[in-house]
């Protein structure tokens, strides 16, 4: 009876879900750096303070995440920016944006009216300036904004997908454990046989 209950209890356990891991990413967003912070199980960090550090460890600023775990930071210096969010209980997110990328964001800002800006930062070099020439700066900004909005769910999905633990890695890990303890067993047994 108790055994049956035990089996029932084990079967009723929730299915393996996503892990409790912090994910954070930053990407260029027009003249600012946009980033997101959250847990890999889909819960985003809301109203979370994100500290921004320079390469020398100096605090460049602080920002708060919005309701979707997104934050915006406008850089002023073309140096590497390190974003650090402490979500409590040992969950810390650290992401860095390289100096080159920050410089590109800063370079874009004054150059945008001239029409050679690539607001999305990493769109293809061909085509973008040519097609952008027909738009005003405001239109360009609007298009960039639209693109970002469209890409956001995709980006999040990719991040979540990357964090997924599939059966292969679980079984692989168990295999490693079996092998390791088997090896230990073998060594211990050999030592005993020698005695």
């Amino acid at each position, binding site marked *: 009876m108790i055994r049956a209950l035990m089996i029932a*209890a084990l079967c009723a356990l929730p299915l393996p879900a996503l892990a409790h891991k912090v994910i954070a990413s930053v990407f260029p967003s027009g003249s600012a750096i946009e980033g997101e912070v959250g847990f890999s199980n889909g819960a985003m960090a809301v109203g979370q303070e994100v500290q921004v550090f320079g390469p020398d460890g100096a605090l460049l600023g602080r920002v708060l995440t919005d309701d979707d775990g997104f934050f915006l930071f406008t850089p002023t210096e073309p140096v590497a920016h390190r974003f650090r969010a402490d979500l*409590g*209980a*040992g969950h810390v997110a650290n992401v860095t944006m390289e100096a080159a990328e920050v410089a590109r964001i800063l370079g874009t800002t004054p150059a945008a009216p001239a029409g050679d800006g690539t607001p999305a930062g990493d769109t293809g070099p061909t085509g973008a300036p040519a097609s952008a020439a027909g738009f005003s700066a405001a239109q360009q900004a609007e298009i960039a904004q639209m693109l970002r909005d469209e890409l956001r769910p995709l980006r999040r999905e990719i991040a979540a997908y990357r964090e997924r*633990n599939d059966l292969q890695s679980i079984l692989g890990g168990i295999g490693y454990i079996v092998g390791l*303890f088997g090896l230990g067993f073998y060594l211990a047994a050999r030592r005993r046989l020698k005695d």
Partner: protein
Amino acid sequence: MHIVDGALSNPVVIGGALFAVAGIARGLRSLELERIPVAGVLSASFFVASLIHVPIGPSSVHLILNGLAGLMLGWAAFPALFVGLLLQAVFFGFGGLTVLGVNTLNIALPAVLAWLLFGRLMARGSPLQGALWAGLGGATAIAGTTVMVALSLALTGDEFLTAAKLILVAHVPIMVIEALLTGFAVLLARKVKPELFDAAKGIRT
């Protein structure tokens, strides 16, 4: 429960690693040939348990099952849990390689503590009594781990009491669930495989 890379200051990371190495050495010495398979099975259960999430409010916490490992293995829980943590870090990215020592210490030391407190009680009396003690041991191990995590963060600069309270409160449901799981597991083992507890009756040195 897993502290990630970069959350702790260097002295805490190094200190944790040293203590963890000492614990693992101690555990390997007390791990007898006959108990290696038990250690392997518990290591594997620990490895998988962290994938089982219990949703609580907006967040969720995962099972840890360190209490069960400690109660069944004693000091040998150190190497068993270390292997589990190492593979979790490599395969799932939980925690990280630099903080492996601290995480091992945080999770294995309370497990050993639970065993020291409840190991003998668990092996005595009727299976049901043993299961009750084991349940208590399971909850104690989780509570101990939350305190250890809070302590590690406090040594790095967090406010200890706030952090401890926050983590402890978040893990109360896990404590209940793990107490039940540990209790049932020990009840089952006491009935079908009582010889597993022979070693636990006298505290081994």
